[in-house]
């Protein structure tokens, strides 16, 4: 059985969808673009693809090598593909949560949050340094359990393609109770919000049930302010890619002791200047945000 790369198939759809979203916004739908912000997002996506080309073979080989030590021989059937999809989404939840709560992983993931816009092009604003931060480690247990590496990469691709479509303000809420089960545009807008109540919430990839289960769910009750706590003042893609790594290096050098050095790398983002998500939430006055519609 062969498994296509879902992302490769989806790229033309991404382009058409972004154009359609721009048009919809021009004709009055909710949302916004900025042409230089869009350029940066798309160049980050391009660089992410190049990084995958450079490092992909190694990660593929690592997955295949681990699979040789698998616990179970799991056949490739529709049921096991679905099971792998669910477990991959669970692994994604913990990767994503770590990417927000551990600065080493955040240094890569911050790229995705560095736009103050929330539109379909933001979905493509991806890191160039993911392999350096070993973010792929969260997926490795799937190989050890015994899922065929082709299946693991296939469901990972499906997960990415799904997540592209939640990066929009055009869609308000999904019908039929889907908001309870799925990560939706509304839930993911919260995730991209810097409003104190929204920081470090809604990590789910496809399913939002993981957030409900692990206590990180937050509904959209006020209009999100998108971006990061210290928004960047440049559209320069290289700086977008490396700014947090540079900040880590600076903080490690400035740290007075080993605890400070460790926390600069492995502590929560904002630990050094007291601007962690928890600290910001604690300092925030009762919200006076704009109600979400």
């Amino acid at each position, binding site marked *: 059985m062969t498994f296509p790369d879902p992302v490769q198939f989806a790229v033309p759809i991404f*382009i058409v969808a972004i*154009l359609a979203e721009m*048009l919809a916004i021009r004709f009055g739908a909710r949302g*916004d673009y900025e*042409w230089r912000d869009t350029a940066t997002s798309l160049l980050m996506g*391009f660089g992410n693809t190049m990084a995958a080309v450079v490092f992909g073979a190694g990660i593929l080989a690592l997955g295949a090598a681990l699979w040789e030590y698998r616990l179970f021989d799991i056949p490739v059937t529709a049921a096991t593909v679905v099971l792998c999809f669910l477990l991959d989404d669970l692994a994604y939840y913990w990767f994503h949560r770590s990417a927000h709560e551990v600065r080493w992983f955040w240094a890569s993931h911050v790229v995705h949050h560095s736009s103050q816009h929330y539109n379909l*092009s933001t979905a493509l604003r991806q890191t160039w340094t993911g392999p350096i931060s070993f973010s792929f480690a969260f997926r490795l247990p799937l190989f050890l359990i015994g899922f065929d590496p082709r299946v693991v990469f296939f469901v990972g691709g499906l997960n990415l393609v799904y997540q592209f479509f939640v990066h929009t303000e055009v869609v308000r809420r999904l019908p039929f109770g889907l908001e309870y089960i799925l990560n939706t545009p509304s839930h993911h807008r919260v995730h991209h919000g810097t409003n104190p109540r929204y920081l470090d919430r809604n990590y789910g990839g496809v399913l939002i049930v993981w957030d409900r289960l692990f206590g990180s769910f937050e509904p959209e009750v006020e209009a999100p302010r998108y971006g990061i706590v210290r928004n960047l003042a440049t559209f320069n893609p290289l700086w977008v890619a490396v700014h947090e790594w*540079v900040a880590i290096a600076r903080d490690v050098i400035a740290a007075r002791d080993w605890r400070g050095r460790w926390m600069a790398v492995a502590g929560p983002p904002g630990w050094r200047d007291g601007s962690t998500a928890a600290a*910001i939430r604690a*300092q925030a006055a009762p919200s006076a945000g704009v109600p979400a519609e």
Partner: protein
Amino acid sequence: MIGIALLVAAAWAFGFRAAPRLDAGEALRLAGEAVAGFAGTRVDLAADGRAALVHGADGRTVLVRGHGNRWVVRPVPPAALRHDAGAVVVDLGEPLFPTTIFAPAAPRIAA
């Protein structure tokens, strides 16, 4: 790369290239939202409306600066502020954060 060029050109052609101007109320709101516990009382607006210095009751100063059609906000340490030929110059020393110059006699607006 062709796809990127097409989409960026489309964004430009559809008019997603506005550079909005600040007013005092907006500057106060942005500073208060971005800096925890900050309450602005006075605003110095740049002549072109693309930046503001917001002064707080507690003595802190916050810079609001245009970035595309959004704003970037930073607390301004006293050492980052200097006066040069009547202008107020804000140089945060942050990589790729442009120096912001407030020309002489910027209007002072009480909140």
